[in-house]
Structure formats: C-alpha cells, structure tokens
C-alpha cells in the first residue's frame, strides 16, 4: 500500500508539471478519499455526470477543431512556412481534447452506433496513396484524380471504400495533408507548403480544396456528437442515457475496458511493438503518437473519476464510477484507481518520436517503456472488469479469467 501511495503522489507531481494535465493532482494523490464514497451515489447519478463530462469534452474538441479550421483556411488562403506551422500547431492542440473522448467509444453510442461518425473522424492506419501522391507515386490519390469531385459527401462515401486503410477523411487525412509522409528518422513528416501553391505543387488547387472540405466534414461530425450529448434536449442520446441506470453504467465500463485493452494496449501499442513499423503508428505523419497514448489514458481516468478539466481551466466534477464501486468495495476501487493512474504515468513516460521508441531488441529502453504501459493497461482492464462485477455488471466484452 505504501508503495502504491508513493507512486500515486509521484504521478500527481508529474502531471502537475505537464501543461495539459486535465486533473487536480489531489484527486490522484489521495486514493484514500475513495473510502468515503459520496452519499446517495447511484447509477443514474453516475450516468448524468458522465453525460456532462462527455458533452464538455466534445465541446472542447469542437472548439479546438474550429480553431484548427481557421488555421487551415489561413494556410490554404496564403500557404507559407508560417501558416503551415500554425495549422500543424492547432491540429496538435485539438488532438489533446479528441484523444480523451476515445473513452466514449465501443458501446454503440453516438460516436460508433450504426450511424456513428467514428470511421470518418479517426480511422487509421491510412494508405496515404489513396488520398494524395506519395514517394514514387506522383499521380496517386483522389487529389490527383481531377475527375473526382471533392465534396463532403463524396469524401465520406470514399472513406474506407474497398479497404479499411482507404481512409479519405478525418484527423489522420488532415494530418497527412499538413505533415506529409514521415520519411525522417528523427522527426515527423516535412511536407513543403509549396504542395499547396499553384504552379509549384501538382494539383495544388485540389489539395487546398480537399484540406478545407475534409476539415469542414470533421467539424460537422464533431458538432453532431456535441448535439447528441447536449443537456436539456428532449430527444437526443443523452436524454435517454441519463435515465438508463445500470445499462448506462454498463456502457461506460464497456468503453473503458475496450479502450484500455483492445484499442490502446493492443491495436496502438502491441501491434507497433511487434512490427517495429512506422506504418503501425497511430499519428504517424506528425509523430504525435506518444500524446495519443497519454490522452487516451487520461480519457479513461477522467471517466473513472467523473472529472474533466476543460479547455478554459474549469473542472467538471461529480458522481463517479469510482464512488459507485467504492460503495461496494473500497479496496477494489482504490486498486483500480492506482492502476489507472499508473497507466497514465507509464504512457507519459513514452518518448517521442514513437517510431524510434518501438525499434530495437528486448532490452531497448523505449520498448520497455511501451511494454510497461501495455502491462499496466492490461491489468487496468482486468481491474475494470472486477469493478464492474462488483456493482453487478457482467455483460461486458471481457470476462474475468
């Protein structure tokens, strides 16, 4: 216990030093607080707080994406080293918020129900040549096919057509336009702004158009998520979710467990670790994969704690899964809390660029840092299953071994 407490305190200090840590350190440093659960905690209270948190996180993401859109418009209006740098900066900034929202996936909610936009927003890995020219293939992609009309509708229709890597839309398509292929060992992609200048880059007009249209589509999709989770609406997803009781709590757990093990530990870390291939890196053009891991882990912690620090610094806080679990099994709630905090810390320790971090033999320090994160997330997924079971929820995507 002492060791764990010490660890948690250290994590708190580490996070406080990080500009984007969305949580008050006190919450993490004092897991003992879980032993006095909030009075009157129940499933609907947790669902309501979750809904408020989800809405706040999507709202911040949308606002950040709008700032990105302004930067993209400025860049395409007047391409230059500076305007490109600003667009890249805003893409990175917006990703900090989006990454945390991935904790809201995997239960068929607004993000990934039958009409959900997840595939349009964040599909990866991307076959770049589906969209634009790549090294050795100057005429590849939709940009260079002048017969293809670039509209939101046509891009959405092309996305994932004929293969899951045929990604035409979303964060990673925008990322590819802003950075280009990552052909550098030490840094990210280094696309020349002249690709967007008439007379310099082939089909520059279409590249500018594509980037603007695909950004607009991202805004539309994010706006639809904000709407689905907006408070006080009569008939949106949230209005039903907050009355869903145990079923809503079940969904929350499915989201956390699936992101922990399958997506983050599995698809995003283990696959890359196994292949040692940059193509298996989530944000491979910008070399921002290390932050993807951290923001995903933070997103899980936010939900567990019912707490999210907004872009403006204010904190959304209320009834949490942790409280709900602690009311049944305080020790298990503590254990889960510590594991979730340990995962955030482990992810924070992964160094950029990720595509170098995965290279090497068994003892390579980078690989060990990634493996440590995987191990922590794996344990965390088991703790979450146990936590869900403790509050009477067994219909999950994982069973206790």
């Amino acid at each position, binding site marked *: 216990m002492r060791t764990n407490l010490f660890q948690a305190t250290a994590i708190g200090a580490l996070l406080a030093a990080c500009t984007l840590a969305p949580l008050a350190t006190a919450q993490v440093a004092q897991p003992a607080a879980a032993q006095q659960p909030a009075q009157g905690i129940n499933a609907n209270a947790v669902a309501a707080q979750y809904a408020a948190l989800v809405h706040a996180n999507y709202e911040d993401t949308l606002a950040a994406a709008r700032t990105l859109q302004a930067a993209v418009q400025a860049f395409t209006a007047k391409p230059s080293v500076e305007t490109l740098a600003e667009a890249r900066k805003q893409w990175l900034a917006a990703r900090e918020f989006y990454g945390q929202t991935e904790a809201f*996936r*995997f*239960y*068929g*909610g607004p993000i*990934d*129900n*039958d009409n*959900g936009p*997840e*595939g349009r927003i964040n599909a990866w*890995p991307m*076959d770049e040549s589906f969209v634009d020219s790549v090294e050795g293939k100057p005429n590849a992609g939709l940009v260079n096919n002048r017969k293809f009309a670039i509209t939101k509708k046509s891009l959405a229709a092309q996305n*994932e*057509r*004929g*293969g*899951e*890597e*045929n990604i035409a839309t979303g964060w990673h398509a925008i990322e590819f336009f802003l950075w280009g292929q990552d052909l550098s060992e030490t840094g990210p992609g280094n696309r020349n702004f002249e690709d967007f200048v008439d007379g310099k880059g082939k089909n520059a007009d279409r590249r500018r158009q594509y980037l603007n249209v695909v950004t607009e589509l991202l805004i539309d999709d994010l706006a639809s998520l904000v709407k689905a989770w907006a408070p006080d609406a009569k008939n949106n997803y949230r209005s039903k979710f907050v009355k869903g009781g145990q079923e809503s709590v*079940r969904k929350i757990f*499915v989201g956390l467990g*699936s992101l922990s*093990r*399958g997506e983050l530990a*599995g*698809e995003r870390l*283990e*696959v890359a670790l*196994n*292949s040692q*291939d940059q*193509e*298996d890196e989530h944000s491979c053009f910008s070399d921002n994969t290390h932050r993807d891991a951290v923001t995903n882990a933070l997103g899980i912690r936010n939900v567990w704690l019912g707490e999210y620090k907004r872009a403006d610094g204010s904190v959304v806080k209320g009834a949490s899964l942790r409280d709900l679990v602690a009311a049944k099994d305080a020790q298990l709630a503590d254990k889960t809390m510590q594991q979730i905090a340990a995962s955030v810390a482990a992810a924070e320790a992964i160094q950029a660029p990720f595509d170098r971090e995965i290279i090497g033999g068994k003892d390579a320090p980078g690989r060990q840092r990634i493996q440590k994160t995987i191990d922590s997330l*794996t344990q965390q997924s088991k703790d979450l299953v146990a936590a869900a079971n403790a509050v009477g929820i067994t*219909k*999950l*995507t*994982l*069973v206790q*071994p």
Partner: protein
Amino acid sequence: MRAPQATRRPHYLWAAAASIGMLTLGGPVAAPQPDPLGEKTGGEATVFATGRNAFSFPAANLTDEERTRFVIGNSFFRRNWVEAPASTKARDGLGPHFIARSCGGCHVQDGRGEPPEIFNRLGETKDPTVALLIRLSIPGTDAHGGPKHEPVYGDQFNNAAVQGVKPEGRVTLRYDTIKGQFADGTPYALHKPVYGFADLGYGPMHPEVMVSPRIAPQIIGVGLLEAIAEEDILANAADQAKAPGPIKGVPNRVWDAPSGTMMLGRFGWKGNVATIAHQTGGAFQGDMGITSKHFPRETCTPTQKDCLAAPSGKSGADGVEIDDKTFNDVVFYQATLAPPARRTPKDPQVLRGQALFAQAQCATCHRPSYVTKAGPFPALTSQALNGQRIHPYTDMLLHDMGERLADGRPDFGASGRQWKTPPLWGTGLIKDVNGHTRLLHDGRARGVLEAILWHGGEAEEAKDQVLKMKKADRDALVKFVESL
C-alpha cells in the same frame, strides 16, 4: 463440475414453443451453462457488443497472450497489401491479379459485404465489385474432386491487377423483378441479380463456363463453428434422413490443403472449405494474390503471360509472400472473433418469433445450439473456444434450395442447387456494423423476410408456412432472427 455434452436437437426452443402449444422432442440436458434463450451466442466467448465494432471483439475469455496475438493478426487482416517491389517487405506481393487489397476490403469491420451499386441500365457498377466474388469453373473436377478451373481465367474472376498487368475484366450486374404475394394478399417483390462480364482481358471464356457469385460473410464465431464435433454435424444429417419430410441435409467433403486430407466442409457458401486455415490461404491467394505455404503459386493461367511475368513479393526462407507466423496470426485472429450476445431475447415479440421459427421448421436446418469440442489445429485457435455452449443456428449441412437460388455450379459434393445453411448469429447487427441488411450468398435479399422468401427446394414447405402467416407473425419471425 458438469461435463459438457452435445445436444443433437434444439432443446432451447421448448420454452418458446410451449407458449404456442407445441412441444419438441428431447428434454433438458446437462450443459456448461444454462442459457435457455441462447443469449450468450458463443458461450463464455460471447461479447456484449453493439454498434459499429460489434463484430470486431476478441472472444471475451481469451488469455492476455492470446489477446496480443489477436491484435497482431488483426493488423495484417486489415492492412492493405502493396505491389512488389515496395519499401515494406512485410506487406508486399499484392496481385498480379486481385479483387481486394486486404481481408478487410471485403469483410469490412469483420462484417458482411454488399453487392455493388448499379450505375446504369447496362448493368455497370459504380465501383469495381470487391466483396462480391465470382467463382468460375467448367464441367469436370480437379485432382481433389473440386471444381475444374476455367482454363483462361482460373477458378475466380479478378477484376483488378497491378501496374502492367491486365485486369481480367469487369463484372456487370442488373436485376430482374420477381413478384408474389402473401396469403393475406400483401404483395412483395424480390430482385434477382443477373450477372455478366465486360472488357474481358484475355478473350472469351470457355463456352461451358459456370459462374457462382459469393458475398463475403461476417466472420464472427468461425473458430467456434470449426470446433463443433464432426459427429454432431453428421448426426444432423442422420436425423434429417430418418425424419419424414423434404429436409435432407448432407455434409460436403472437401480437400483441405493445410492438413492434406479430405475433411468435412464447414465454410464457404457451399461448405466448400473445411478449415479457417484453408479458407484464409485460399483467400490470400485468390482474392489478394498473396502466396503462402499451402498456396505457394500465383493464380496466373498459362494464357496470362503478363501475369506470369509480373514481379513477386517473395521473401524469406519460406519463398512465399506471407510468412507462416503472420499467416497463422491472421488465422488465429479470425478464429477468435467473438459472436456478440443477443440484445433482446426476452422481448415478447421476439419470443413469439422464436416459437414460430421452430414451428415453421426453420430450426431443423438452422439448428440453434451445440456444445463445441475442439478445432482441427490447436496452434491456430484458442482452447477457450472448446466446450462452449454456442447458438449459431446452422446444421452445417448442404440443402437443395431450389431452382431460383441455384447457381448451377457444383463444388466438391455440393450440387448446383445446394447451399450450406449459413449461421444466423449476428444477423441483426449487420446493419450496425456494415450499414446494410443484404443477405444470402450474393447479397440479393434486402433483409430477413426477403431471404426467407428466396428459400425453395427442401425449404419450400417452411417458406409456404411463412407465406401463410399473418403480418404480425411475419414481423415477429423477422424480429426474432434480427435478435440473433
């Protein structure tokens, strides 16, 4: 501990059947877990999942190491293969001829493909057909008793090719309308696809060519289907042979390259493949042009000189384009894809539909339940799939489905009128995952009711019962199938 025991009859229908005054044979049996409504379609492997990812979860009861193997297999399942030579050595070798660049190109989100949209009255499609595969053969058999390849185009039509190689051509598609009505006078219209070829790359096909369209099905639960005891499937055939009535399912026996033996056919629309490993090797070779240990040669025919001359992505000691370890991981990945749980098994309309399903004899071929034994290749699956009470709704047998569904193309023991009973689990989630409800071997049916109406041959009587149902009963029946 109670010993797992196989059921040979759909005992679980008894509760529902009793509610409409029916009894089925047999009584309750000892089981791994009582689950009278079959909510956990894959036993302990079941995931409670809906939405776009519903078909993409690993079996809920895998070990940590197995989960790691699952995600690694998945990465190769969905990644695009590229033309050789390329900077990536792990994933080059696409083509020379191919249909899709990845497994996920047809099995989108591990789900089910749909027929292409039609562009104009000439039957041209908007995009090249991807998830709809066209098998080709001519009368006769190959060395193993399988279909004899069309001499110029091989055993399947490849409408894409790498640079410098001609594609085999385009598939065209138009629909004829078949009209009919239910006993209550409600009209219905089915649309029957008519296939053709255009822009043939290597001249005309053999005059006696036989053509069979096949859509890519959802992959969930294939490891569990592989683990059903052969004796259980053969018992289905024996039971049906003894019982009165037209339903007489038969097993297919097919060549399995990985084991080098003839085996009971379990996969493919005609039960024409025995194991996931064979299916995967065949698809890598036939659909993507990727060679592997048991499928070491590209499918170029002697006439296809450009195809034969194209560069290969062979590498490593194996001398094939996908190495054994990667291949095995892709097989393991598919074997351990979990069937999702039923969503609303206790809904009164669903229960009513379940009873009607049994009453109309649907459950004779779409046998609800088994207790699994073990898959054929322990290294390519998980022990977690063994001994599970599963609810796939198939007898794994071939049935004469009548002239309207017939493709007229034999495949090992399957005649041109026979199709294998497909499992029904996941049917209601295809819309969530793939955004459509197209069913049957080539996706011609637009939803469950149309799929039922296409049934003929041995299933003619069952279909007639559905035609006689009133609307509320038809709706309940559909609702039940969609609850699976």
